[in-house]
């Protein structure tokens, strides 16, 4: 048993359902108690999905507990087959119902006899893996199922496409900015003259899976979902994998160069150097920003990075290499991916943290006192408490990660977006200057902040006027610092004199 307040990754069935409901015309049946069907809420509310979520619960209640599911699961599968005529129904338990140890495989076999569609049991250990691992596994399982099916029927294509082509693997529903990343990557491939053979699983049909072997290579932008499928395809069809996340100018270039190598090995004779140079120096604004005078103020600022492996590693590299920011700590909650993560970030940060405990990272942030955090919604909350700005760079997914406007994280437009995110996360320029003047950088006594906010001190009218002259965005800080000073020096009220004494004392 462990005391848990917060989870960075969801339970396994969420991963399975993300894969199933990403495909077109695939339905999922969840063998679970009534209250487990909140995936539908997440999809409909967070992603503002217009269609009904193709997930139905075959409800485990007191009756099922006493007598077993018997016909219930089979009936529900057959019913959905009639109602929705899906291509595939995926059956999954949740960690709760998996304890019942019912023979779900047997239900699947029986349902397959009656249903027109394919029926598959998600093969995931619900206690050993989390949402991300389960998603990776389920996608691979679905792909393998359809590849083998096509092979049996002799329907597997034996040749690659005429022109260079790619499968983009790992785009899912409820993925962090996946919808915008998808658009950006498709555009990037277009710019490189590469046909997109298939994007998987988002909006793909399972009928298209047998076309996967036609692509020249597989692009797997995320560590969390896709690698298992790419590995399988590589083994089966000798299809090369490019698994460099094209996030930030440098890594996007490295990804494109790897693609170039992969294509040239297959006889394409492409050269992307000119494209990379043009994009880097003139089209994208990210490189220019790094060079601009504005960005100078960022040099050496301290930052903490935390997130899933993909985004935390990429962000660490961007901050250090492209912006000259000092990443004190880089961390991830993907514990199973520790080796890779360490190897990626070790040379770009002072310290690495691998933990699922939000308290551990919060404590680190409190002691490091970085100028900015790049983390998840949780670190954003921690930052709020400590008054440290935080840019959100990774799941757990939040409604704010489904902006209506275009906000990719990958590719060249992604780089521009990241620059804005980074820039806006630090306090800069004029604001910085003012903070300096009023001693706003003294963040050591964060604990007193809530105390002073209660305001047991009186401000004289003059002092209030003076305070109101301070620009709005630093006013709170100035007020707190002044009150702290007043309290420490035993002033019951604050007049202009006390205010300036406070300012001087901080300056001293």
């Amino acid at each position, binding site marked *: *048993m*462990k*005391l*848990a*307040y*917060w*989870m960075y990754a*969801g*339970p396994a*069935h*969420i991963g399975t359902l993300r894969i199933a409901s990403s495909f077109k015309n695939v339905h999922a049946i969840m063998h*679970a*108690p*009534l*209250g*487990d*069907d*909140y995936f*539908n*809420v*997440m999809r*409909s*509310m967070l992603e*503002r*999905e*217009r*269609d*009904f*979520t193709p997930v*139905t*619960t075959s*409800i*485990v*209640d*007191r009756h099922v*507990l006493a007598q077993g599911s018997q016909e219930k699961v089979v009936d*529900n599968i057959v019913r959905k087959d009639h*109602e*929705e*005529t899906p291509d595939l129904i995926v059956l999954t338990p*949740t*960690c*709760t*119902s998996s*304890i*019942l140890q019912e023979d779900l495989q047997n239900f699947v076999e029986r349902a397959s006899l009656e249903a027109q569609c394919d029926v598959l049991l998600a093969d995931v250990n619900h*206690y*050993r893996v*989390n949402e991300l691992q389960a998603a990776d596994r389920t996608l691979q399982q679905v792909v393998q199922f359809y590849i083998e099916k096509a092979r049996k029927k002799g329907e597997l294509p034996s040749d690659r496409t005429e022109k260079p082509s790619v499968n983009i693997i790992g785009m899912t529903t409820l993925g962090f900015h996946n919808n915008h990343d998808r658009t950006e990557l498709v555009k990037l491939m277009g710019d490189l003259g590469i046909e997109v053979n298939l994007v998987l699983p988002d909006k793909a049909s399972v009928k298209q899976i047998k076309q996967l072997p036609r692509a020249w290579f597989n692009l797997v932008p995320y560590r969390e979902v896709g690698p298992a499928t790419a590995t399988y395809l590589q083994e089966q069809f000798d299809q090369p994998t490019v698994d460099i996340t094209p996030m930030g100018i440098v890594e996007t270039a490295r990804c494109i160069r790897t693609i170039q190598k992969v294509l040239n090995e297959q006889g394409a004779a492409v050269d992307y150097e000119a494209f990379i140079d043009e994009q880097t120096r003139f089209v994208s604004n990210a490189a220019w920003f790094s060079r601009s005078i504005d960005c100078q103020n960022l040099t050496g600022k301290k930052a903490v990075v935390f997130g899933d492996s993909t985004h935390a590693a990429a962000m660490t590299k961007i901050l250090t290499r492209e912006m000259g920011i000092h990443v004190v700590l880089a961390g991830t909650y993907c514990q199973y991916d520790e080796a890779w993560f360490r190897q990626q970030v070790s040379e770009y940060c002072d310290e690495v943290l691998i933990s699922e405990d*939000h308290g551990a990272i919060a404590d680190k942030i409190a002691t490091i006192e970085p100028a900015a955090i790049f983390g998840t*919604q*949780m670190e954003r*909350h921690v930052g709020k*408490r400590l008054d440290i700005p935080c840019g959100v760079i990774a799941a*757990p997914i939040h409604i704010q990660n489904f902006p209506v406007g275009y906000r990719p994280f990958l590719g060249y437009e992604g780089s521009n977006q990241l620059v804005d995110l980074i820039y806006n996360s630090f306090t800069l320029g004029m604001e910085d200057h003012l903070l300096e003047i009023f001693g706003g950088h003294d963040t050591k006594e964060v604990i007193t902040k809530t105390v002073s906010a209660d305001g047991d001190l009186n401000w004289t009218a003059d002092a209030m006027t003076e305070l109101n002259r301070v620009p709005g965005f630093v006013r709170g800080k100035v007020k707190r610092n002044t009150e702290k000073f007043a309290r420490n020096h035993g002033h019951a009220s604050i007049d202009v004199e006390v205010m300036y004494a406070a300012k001087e004392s901080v300056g001293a």
Partner: protein
Amino acid sequence: MTLATPQPEKLEFDCDTGNYHTFCPISCVAWLYQKIEDSFFLVIGTKTCGYFLQNAMGVMIFAEPRYAMAELEESDISAQLNDYEELKRLCEQIKRDRNPSVIVFIGTCTTEIIKMDLEGLAPKLEGEIGIPIVVARANGLDYAFTQGEDTVLAAMVERCPTSDDLESPTDKAERNNFQKLLNFGRKTDTPEPTESPEYHDHPNLVIFGSVPDPIVTQMTLELKKQGIKVGGWLPAKRYTELPVLDEGDYVIGINPFLSRTATGLMRRRKCKLIGAPFPIGPDGTRAWVEKVCSVFGIEPQGLAEREAKIWESLEDYLAIVRGKSVYFMGDNLLEISLARFLVRCGMTVPEIGIPYMDKRYQAAELALLEKTCHEMGAPLPKITEKPDNYKQIQRIQEIQPDLVITGMAHANPLEARGINTKWSVEFTFAQIHGFANARDILELVTRPLRRNSSLSDLGWDKLVKEEAKV
């Protein structure tokens, strides 16, 4: 309890497959930990439960969380670890970090499946750590959404002191606690002593159901106007202020989903249950207060005028809803009360879905619904217990109601198909009880109607290309 008086036309009840969307009952933690300020809620379950609380309920952890998950791991499930020792370890940690007055164990489906004997463990554990432990089995196998509150309150029924407890000098520590409680209670809730001439002489009355503090004050005052003194609320703001319950005391529910608590009060504490419609809407509030008066033999004062005045003040909203239809898919068990109020407002209700229908506990409410329909000349709604959302959506497409009150999973897809919706959960969290809050209910109900009538002028009605294959 009043039973429905025979009517020429009867309500029709149906029970479907139970394939509907609702929230897990452990969600009650979200409002109960706020209501009971000195509590700590420990949900004993799996990652699935934890992720639900974190995500679907939008409950997030701030500086001082007063609830947590005891996450069961593989070794717990396979019974390699000793439940007692594990729970003790966690409780000691909670005591050290938060020192609550009570720890509420929330059982889940998993504790049911592995048959973890929480009720058996609690007494010994309680003794060892020195903090009361209340066990509620709010699992999703047996209950829906708001019924979670019912399981917690039903468990607390046993913890309410009797007046003998307060006088007996046996347990000193406890008595001191209760003394404090009494003084505290006097200062805040009810400034007047019982003998005050403002109050009639009547038996002790305790109200059960968790409502926000402003509602507690309003309803207490509402009864005070009739010379009735509220002896206490279950739950109170603090666990240490649980109401005194003696045999023969009167109890009345404020929420329609508390049938187990009601049963517990009657059976285990020998209290007398006052069965009334629920104080939602001016009609329900009047009926509720009237019922208490009639049980105590008090002539109600000025209630009819009060109700009429409220209706008058609602006229701007009533003009919007009159003649419109509202369909309840079924989610939080507030459906019957809300439907009854909305029929009185002039709406029609083709169907009321409801997770669970306790015809005895809701008898007075059902009778009032029937009566209201007859008086308003509205057709009687069909009541579907354990609905099937898929079939409901087909019916909704057919009858095209003006408004659908639905759980969160279906709101956006229905809106995309040009159907006005309102989330049922909003009624769970809004202040809807009493005379004055009728306005708030109508504010919620009319919001989609007002918003969407302005959008439809723009031609933004259906926002999906092909109709879904329902």
